[in-house]
Structures are given as structure tokens and as C-alpha cells.
């Protein structure tokens, strides 16, 4: 009988112990994109945000050539949700990554142009990330293209 009376209390105790602490809302956006030159070792280092990662698999994924990174620079921006949008000149796609333990995991690969993006640049346009290519502007989310605008 006494044990039955204590059950709700025990339930509350276990529920509290198992819940995850969540801090929200959180905003991860970069006000302006980072333009990062890739080192000879294939590592891109963003000095401002103290972030570095290996770009060789990215270039291999885009071009099938693991040495295609040489002498290149990438453009990267982080949206409000914390996803990294990465592309480079002549890439056909914008790659979206999430941060993981000592790694970046691809969430999506957004096809922008079959002929390649000639002059890419990201702008932060909450809640979207805007991709500019000359006068073309494309609004992106982590899932894909939201809208396209041509002038």
C-alpha cells in the first residue's frame, strides 16, 4: 500500500533524471560568409571562427578528383539552425553539413547548376541562406532550394 503511494514520486524522479538539458532558442548564423583558401594539405582553416576541416572528400565528391582542391578557395556560411553551407567556384552543388564529433556530416547536397556556379557568394538572409551567382539569387534552406530569383 505504502509502495503504491510512493510510485508517482518515483516516476517523477526518474523522469527528471532521464531528460536532456536543452538551451533554446539558439542562433548559429554567420553574419557574413567566410572565404577560405585551402592549404596544400587540403585543410580549410577559418581563422575568424577557429574552425578547420579536411576538404579533400568534398572536392572528390564534387569532381571525382581528390586533388581538385589545390589552389582553390571555398565559401562557407552557417545558417541560424547551425548548418554549414559550402560551395566553391565552378561547383554544381551547395553542400550542407552539420557539426559532429571532430567531423562534419553531410545533411544534403543541393544542385544549383549543371554548368557550375561561376561566381558564388553566400549572404545571410534569415531564415534563408542566399546564394548569389552574378545576378542570380537562390534562397536555400538545409533541405534544398526555397526559391530562385533572376534579374
Amino acid at each position: 500500500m505504502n509502495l503504491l503511494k510512493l510510485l508517482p514520486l518515483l516516476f517523477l524522479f526518474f523522469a527528471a533524471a532521464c531528460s536532456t538539458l536543452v538551451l533554446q532558442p539558439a542562433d548559429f548564423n554567420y553574419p557574413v560568409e567566410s572565404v577560405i583558401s585551402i592549404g596544400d594539405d587540403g585543410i580549410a582553416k577559418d581563422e575568424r571562427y577557429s574552425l578547420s576541416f579536411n576538404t579533400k572528400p568534398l572536392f572528390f565528391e564534387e569532381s571525382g578528383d581528390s586533388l581538385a582542391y589545390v589552389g582553390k578557395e571555398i565559401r562557407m556560411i552557417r545558417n541560424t539552425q547551425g548548418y554549414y553551407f559550402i560551395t566553391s567556384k565552378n561547383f554544381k552543388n551547395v553542400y550542407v553539413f552539420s557539426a559532429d564529433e571532430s567531423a562534419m556530416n553531410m545533411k544534403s547536397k543541393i544542385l544549383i547548376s549543371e554548368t557550375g556556379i561561376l561566381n558564388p557568394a553566400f549572404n545571410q538572409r534569415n531564415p534563408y541562406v542566399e546564394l548569389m551567382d552574378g545576378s542570380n539569387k537562390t534562397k536555400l534552406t538545409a533541405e534544398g532550394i526555397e526559391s530562385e530569383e533572376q534579374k
Partner: protein
Amino acid sequence: MKKLFLFSTIISLFFFVNSFAQSDYEIVENFKSNIKQIEQSIRNVVTLDELNEVSPKIDALRTNFRANKELLDKSLYPDNFDKSIEKLETAFSIRSKDFIQIDVLQTEVYGLREQVDVLNKRNTELINQLAVLESESKTNKNKIAQLEKTIAELKASLKKRDELIISLIDSLLPSSAISGELSADQKDQLFNGSESNSVLYNIKRSIRDNLRFLDVTTLKPDDVAEIKREQQEFSRVWKSVGPKMVDIYAQKKGNANDLKEIDAAFNSWHDALRDEVWNSIREEFSIYNLNLRNFSSGNEFTNSVTAFINDEIKNVGVRDETQVKRTYTEFADSVWFGTIKPQWVSYLIDNKMMTDAQKDTIETRLSEWKEKVEPAGFNWLYLIIAALVVIVVVLLFIKRKPSLPKFEPPLDDMKETV
């Protein structure tokens, strides 16, 4: 410089017109690039007019990028839009003050240089006049007053000219720049100022004139102390600028011979003043034909004096007694206790040119000399004084001797009366 401004303005306008097609990144980079260009312009301008041409550019930057303030505030961390513009304005203001200060200093330097030129001319005339008077005064005593007046005028004139040269050196650079490392602009300023105002020539000439002055005059301790003070002040100012000038002259002219000459001249001046002190002391003895061995240090002076005294002690009993006594009186009473000790000894000790022990050595030898010349025997003077004292006491005693007592009635009579 004007072309650079025009070019950068056109570039800025071009970016501004095209800012609608720019990515945020390009806007931020363009803003940063404009800031850098303006900073560079502020650093590179060489006149106040050129600097004033930068001011509208700062205003244009503020106006052109105000629309992107929010983006720039976020992107320029740890600065922001306003802080970046404020930094430019502060740099502009500091540079502007530099030019105003330089302008003031240049005007001051010009005025000083004119005065130095006038005094240079006057001092040359006075030194020449002094040399003539110095030789004339030996034969014509009437010229002595004129000589002394000319010396006083020359001394005052030299002092004023030295002060002007010190001001001239001080005016070459703002005092804030002298203590720290000099920028390329400040080095140019110092070099040009020095060259256009013949600063090195004037310093050398000033030292040379001071040396000539020491050469043609005999100084009193007060004069020496005053010249020493001037010398120290001159030297202090030169030391604050001199090493920097050595570097600059080495860079600009490939040699620094002038500066080495100035350093050597300062040393000569310092030595000459020290020698002049000893010469003036020797001069005091020479007036009484007391010829001492040459000396140029406290030790040599002590040796020279004690050697003279030793010789004189040996002469006691050999030479004429009157002459021996006269030599002692002139040496001890007239020169040592009359002039050297009251006027020079404290100066020599204060300036570490002589020690107390050396002074005591000389005075001990003087006592020994006195003992030989005037031996402490029975002194008739004391006897006469003692006799006089006895006479005075006796006279007083006699004067005070009580007169005969007046008649007093016998005590018994008094009792009866009562």
C-alpha cells in the same frame, strides 16, 4: 598624393554604385579596404593641406556605407561601423595636431635661427675686441675697465646664444617624439630641420666660441660654476637628440663625422673648463710671483703646493729672513687664506677636483712652514698684554679703594637717647 586620393575616391564610388550587386562579403571587404586606404593616406600625407583633403573621404565613407551599418556591425568584430570611422577620425585628429605642432615649431625655429645668426656675428666681434683689449690692458691700465665690460657683454651674449641653440635643438622635434622611437616622417623632419637651420654648424660654433672665451679670460669660481651649468644643460639637450641624429645622418648622408666632431668638441669644452679652473688658481699665485709647478688635477695641485712649501722650509735659515717671511705671508695669508681657500677650495671639493684630505695635507704643511718661519718661543707680545692687564687691574683696585668711614656716634649714646 592627390592622384592617389582621386583614384581611391573613384574606386570607392565604383564599389558603392555596384554595391547593390555585391555579396555581403564584398561589401565588408570593400569597407575594410577603404578604411585601410584612408589610414594609409593619413600616415603618408606630408602637409596639412594634403591631410585636409582626407577629411571629405572619411565623410564619404560614412555616408556610403551607412546603409550597411547592421551588416558591418556584425561583421567587423571586435570593431563595428561607428568604431571604425571613429578610429579614422582619431588618427586624422592626431596627425592634424602633429602638423599644427610642426608648423608652430617651424615658425619658432625660424625666429630662433635669425637670433642665433645675429648673436654669432656679435660674439665674433666681441671675442676679437676682447683679444685686442687683453693685450692692450697689460700696457694701458685704463683699458682694464673696458676689458671687464667687454668680458661681461661677451659672457652674456654667449649665454644667450647657447640658450637659443638649446631652444633650436628642442624645437626640431616635439618632446613626445624625443623620448620614443622615431617614425620615418619624424626622422625626415629632424634631418631637414637640422640641415636647413645649420644646427650642427651652430652647435660646433657655439662650443668653439666658448672655448675661445675660456682661452682669453681668467675666470672666478662663480663664472666657472655658471659656465659649468650651461655646459651641462647644453650637453643634456645634445644627448637627448644627438644619438638619434647620429643614426639619421648615418642613413641620409652615409657618415656621421659632424656628429663625432660635436662629441669631441663637447669633451674639449669640458676639459678646457677644468683646465681653466687650474689656470685661474695658478694665476692667483702668479700675481705674487709665486711660481708653482704646473698642475691640472687635485693631486698635482697638492704635490705642487707641498713641493713649494718644502723648498721654502729648506730656505729658512739660508735665505734672508725678511724675504722668507714675506714669501710665507704672501703665500699663506694673501693667496691661500685670502683667495684660494675662500673662493676655490669649496668649488674644487664640490666638483670632486680635490679631496678634503688633500686640502688638509696642504694646511698641515702650511702650519709646519709657519712654525719654521715664526717659531713658537717666548712671545713678548703676550708679556706686554699681561703687563697691561696687570696695570689695568691695579688701577681699578686703587680707584675702588674705600675712603675713610664717616663719623658714627657711639652705640651707648644712642641707647641713652632711646
